[in-house]
Structures are given as C-alpha cells and as structure tokens.
C-alpha cells in the first residue's frame, strides 16, 4: 500500500463502476479523476472494456433451439 492518490483511485475503479462506493468515496474518486487524465483514461478504458466483453461473447440463440423451446409449451386444449 502506498499513499499515491492514483493507487487509491485504481483500487476504487471496480467498485466505482459497479456503483458500490459510498457517497464520500465517489466524491473522492471524482475529485481525483477531474484532475488526473492518467487515471481518467484508465477508467474510461475499463468502462469500454466491460461493454466490449459483453458484446464480444454474446452469441445469438440458434433458431432451431428457439423452435424446440416453443414446442415444449403445453398444448392448448
């Protein structure tokens, strides 16, 4: 552990983006980010990365499976 504010900011990144920091911590992180492009860039990268990962691994459901699932429905009598 160091007292480097960028190290502190790095530790707050995941909880900041997850929205799990306290109000006080959010203010602290944002105050640092407002004046530190080095950290701000890394936060932006993390945000974009999360989105990119989500899109990259999303595979649409095969239509055949969709049809199979629909066929499992209880027939209307």
């Amino acid at each position: 552990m160091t007292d480097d504010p960028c190290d502190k900011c790095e530790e707050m990144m995941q909880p900041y983006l997850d929205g799990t920091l306290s109000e006080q911590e959010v203010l602290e992180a944002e105050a640092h980010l407002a004046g530190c492009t080095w950290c701000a860039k890394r936060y932006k990268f993390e945000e974009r990365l999360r989105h990119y990962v989500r899109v990259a691994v999303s595979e649409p459901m095969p239509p055949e499976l969709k049809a199979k699932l629909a066929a499992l429905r209880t027939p209307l009598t």
Partner: protein
Amino acid sequence: MSESTPTAAESRRLAQTARDRVRFEEEALELSDQVYRVARRLVGSREEAEDLVQQTYERAFRSWQQYTPGTNLRAWLLRILTNLNIDRGRRVQRTPQTTSLDANEQGDYFLYNRLSSQSPDENPDEERVLERLSQDNVVDALADVPHDFRDVIVLVDIGEFSYADAAQILDIPIGTVMSRLHRGRRILKQNLADEAAA
C-alpha cells in the same frame, strides 16, 4: 342446480390455472435469448449450452407453479440451469483456486498499461487500446477463467444480474460473489493481455 355450483367454481379455477400457465410459458420463452446467452458462456460448447437450455425449459414448464409471480423469472430460470449444470457432473472437477497467481498481483489498471505500452503513443485513447483485442481474444480469455470466477463474471458482467441475484443463482454468499468478481475480472484481464500478446 346445487350440484352445478362447485363444478362451475372448479372449472373457473382450472381455466385460471391454464391462463396462468400460458402466461408463465410465454414470459419464460421471451427470456430464452438472454438465458441462452448466459448459458453459452457458462459451459464449454454450443451443444452443451443448447442441451442445458432445453432441459431448463422442460423443468421450468413442469414445475412452473413453484415460481412466485412478480419475482425475477430470469434469475429463477438461471437457478434451474445452474442446478442442472451441477447435476450433470460438469462441476466435479474443481478448478484450483490458485490459478493465475499473477492476476491477483496485478492492479486494475494492468490491462490498459500492458496494451498501451505496445502502442507508439504515450497514454493513448481507450478506443485505440481496445482495438488490440479481437472478439476471439475475448471469447478465449473468458473461457480460460476458472469456472468459479467465470460463473460470476458471466452472470454479473455478461448477464447483468445484480450481486444478490448472482448469489441466489449460484447459492453462495453475496460477499463471495463480490470477491470472486473482483478476482475474476483481474484473471480475465491477465488472460486478455496474454491473448493479445500471443
């Protein structure tokens, strides 16, 4: 006349149950794309994911009355899916918790630092850095995350479930969800760095 009353009540009840059932099945089917997307990354192959989703819907349609209307149906379906996945014995081989020791040593800026160090610009824009990762890199990097960690990443970061839902689906404490997510994301980043360098 006196005998027809209970029969009428009974048939109304049956008709109501039938309507509830139809509504349940429709709502569950509307979620199937999202269920499949999560399932596809919880297991190794497309075939396994398809089998698992089909079994999940078979079971869900059989036990639909156990679902409490108004609660999170998508989480309920994923809970069934996760249990089926365990029942099928895919989880017998436990992945050691000590893999990717390096990843735990790395901070959260690691991936940007690593990828941007290969760029001619100093402190390049995030989009430029991201371009160094292909879709295949991401798919492979995620697949290589040990499953205890991957499950949580898939549910929270891919499936966009809350910590509480992920905890319920996986039947683990919420604190464990958070610590696995934190660690899992670091492992994923380590894998992404390795993939980009390969």
